[in-house]
């Protein structure tokens, strides 16, 4: 019921454009390209999943959009204006929960509220978000008193509290058990339906990507790769409208394609194969 206490009603989802984004890190062994030639357009309200092998630059890409990091080349535009520094229109749920240890979960989530939120409205929204992520009973606990999965859900609630135009989620469900993960995926879709935001979501879970996203972006690792390849290996349009059937046949094919792109051997699924769904 976070949706009953919005903090701003006029907040639109923002389109995001990345133009030829490049990021290179200087290391002891010389410069190391992590992102190269990333061209991408996220439509307002779209959900895009980012998959790719560990270390390929998914978190780095998210940081370019949030303004926490700046690209060495190319541009990042939010609604047509370049991102310069940390942008109020975005909210991040980091790969690690990053909760302040001396604050209760409720106070941590409150950190995400947009500045100037009236006290009462803020408190109500925090309470609702905590309840939505299943932490209603744990509002007054400190981060060290909760499990990793609980901390991660609090971190998700903190990002949602912002009611952002662009929601950047870095493996938001990574530490959750299978059941809670499915619930949180549905929660995200529900919040998205009620408070549309442009969502860029990093995940290692191909099923999750196909269930949640309008498009899935497969990144490749540039380490030791050919000089001329860009970071984006493949962009996949996910068919069907949300909420999707988790057992949709059409997704099986894409799943195999993505897993193959990630270097996981699967048995090939031919279009029209009546047994296609067995590979799910």
């Amino acid at each position, binding site marked *: *019921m976070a949706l009953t206490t919005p903090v701003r009603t006029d907040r639109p989802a923002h389109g995001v454009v990345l133009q030829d984004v490049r990021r290179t890190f200087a290391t002891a062994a010389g410069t190391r390209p992590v992102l190269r030639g990333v061209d991408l357009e996220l439509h307002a309200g779209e959900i895009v999943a980012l998959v790719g092998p560990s270390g390929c630059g998914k978190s780095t890409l998210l940081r370019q959009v949030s303004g926490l990091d700046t690209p060495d080349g190319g541009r990042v535009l939010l609604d047509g204006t370049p991102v310069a520094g940390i942008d109020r229109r975005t909210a991040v749920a980091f790969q690690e929960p*990053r909760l*302040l240890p001396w604050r209760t979960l409720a106070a941590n989530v409150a950190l995400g509220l947009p500045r100037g939120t009236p006290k009462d409205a803020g408190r109500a929204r925090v309470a609702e978000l905590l309840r939505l992520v*299943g932490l*209603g009973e744990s509002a007054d606990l400190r981060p060290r*008193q*909760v499990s990793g999965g609980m901390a991660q859900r609090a971190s998700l609630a903190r990002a949602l509290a912002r009611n952002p135009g662009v929601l950047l989620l870095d493996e938001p469900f990574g530490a959750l058990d299978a059941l*809670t993960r499915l*619930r949180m995926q549905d929660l995200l879709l529900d919040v998205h*339906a009620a408070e549309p935001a442009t969502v860029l979501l990093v995940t290692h879970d191909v099923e999750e990507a196909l269930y949640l996203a309008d498009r899935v972006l497969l990144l490749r690792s540039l380490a030791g790769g050919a000089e001329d390849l860009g970071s984006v290996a493949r962009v996949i349009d996910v068919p069907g409208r949300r909420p999707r059937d988790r057992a949709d046949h059409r997704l099986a094919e894409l799943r195999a394609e993505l897993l193959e792109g990630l270097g996981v051997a699967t048995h090939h699924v031919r279009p029209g194969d009546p047994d296609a769904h067995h590979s799910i």
Partner: protein
Amino acid sequence: MTDHVAGTGTGPVTDRAGRPLRALNPFDAMRGADAAPAGAAAPGRARGGFWSRRVVRVVGGALLPLLLLAVWHAVTAGGLVPPYQLPAPASVWDAALDLLARGQLQTHVAISVQRVLIGFVTGAAVGLVLGSLVGLSRAADVLLAPLLGAVRAVPSLAWVPLLILWLKIGEESKVTLIAIGAFFPVYTTVAAALRHVDPHLVEAGRAFGLRGVRLLQTVQLPAVLPSVLSGLRLALAQAWLFLVAAELIASSMGLGFLLNDSQNSGRVDRILLAIVLLALLGKLSDSLVALGERALLRRYA
């Protein structure tokens, strides 16, 4: 978004179209599914154990001092050591009563406590400010840290002649010396702690729009609070050390003066009295700060 459900009531959760939201309600059923560690992980303050009981801690802590007193008494009463080397506890007590009756003991204690307090507060405050500067700003680190590091290496007594020359033998010179003593523990701990605040937390604070003073208040200061508090305790201990250094050399009042004066007049009982008083006052002030420390940490850490 505001208009479809009124208030925060307990009715079914629906989206704008009135369609029930799938994910939202099931949680009520799985409440506490993974909330288990809440109770278990709550740090047990009163975790049984004989040695952590309050009575045991107080009595146990008093045990050795009392034993020491008994041995002291036995040694002197048995004539093992001559009184001009070690007077009996009773004569130290008498010396205390005597000085009290003349109204001198109160003055010595009061002036010493006052010097320690003023010096401690001044030194700690400056230490807090400079420590924060050096800990937070690269520029301040580059410019200030080497100089302060060098100043810190100067032994306390080395300052005395200069301070007397510049500030005369009044209160200022003593308080300044004590402030120098209190400054460094605070400065070093605060600067080091701020440099090591988890950069992930600072980044999270920045990501949620905190900057400058608000970032400092919300993330950095609470993160370094435990270090600041232990720095303050060290500073207080240091303040008492520097007090004696200051009073031994040039003063007409205070416990350090009492020490020096008694040495010149050969009053070993008064020397012992001053030492015992310094021990008691030092321990007492440290305990007071420790109490405050515990209360603050319980709230913020």
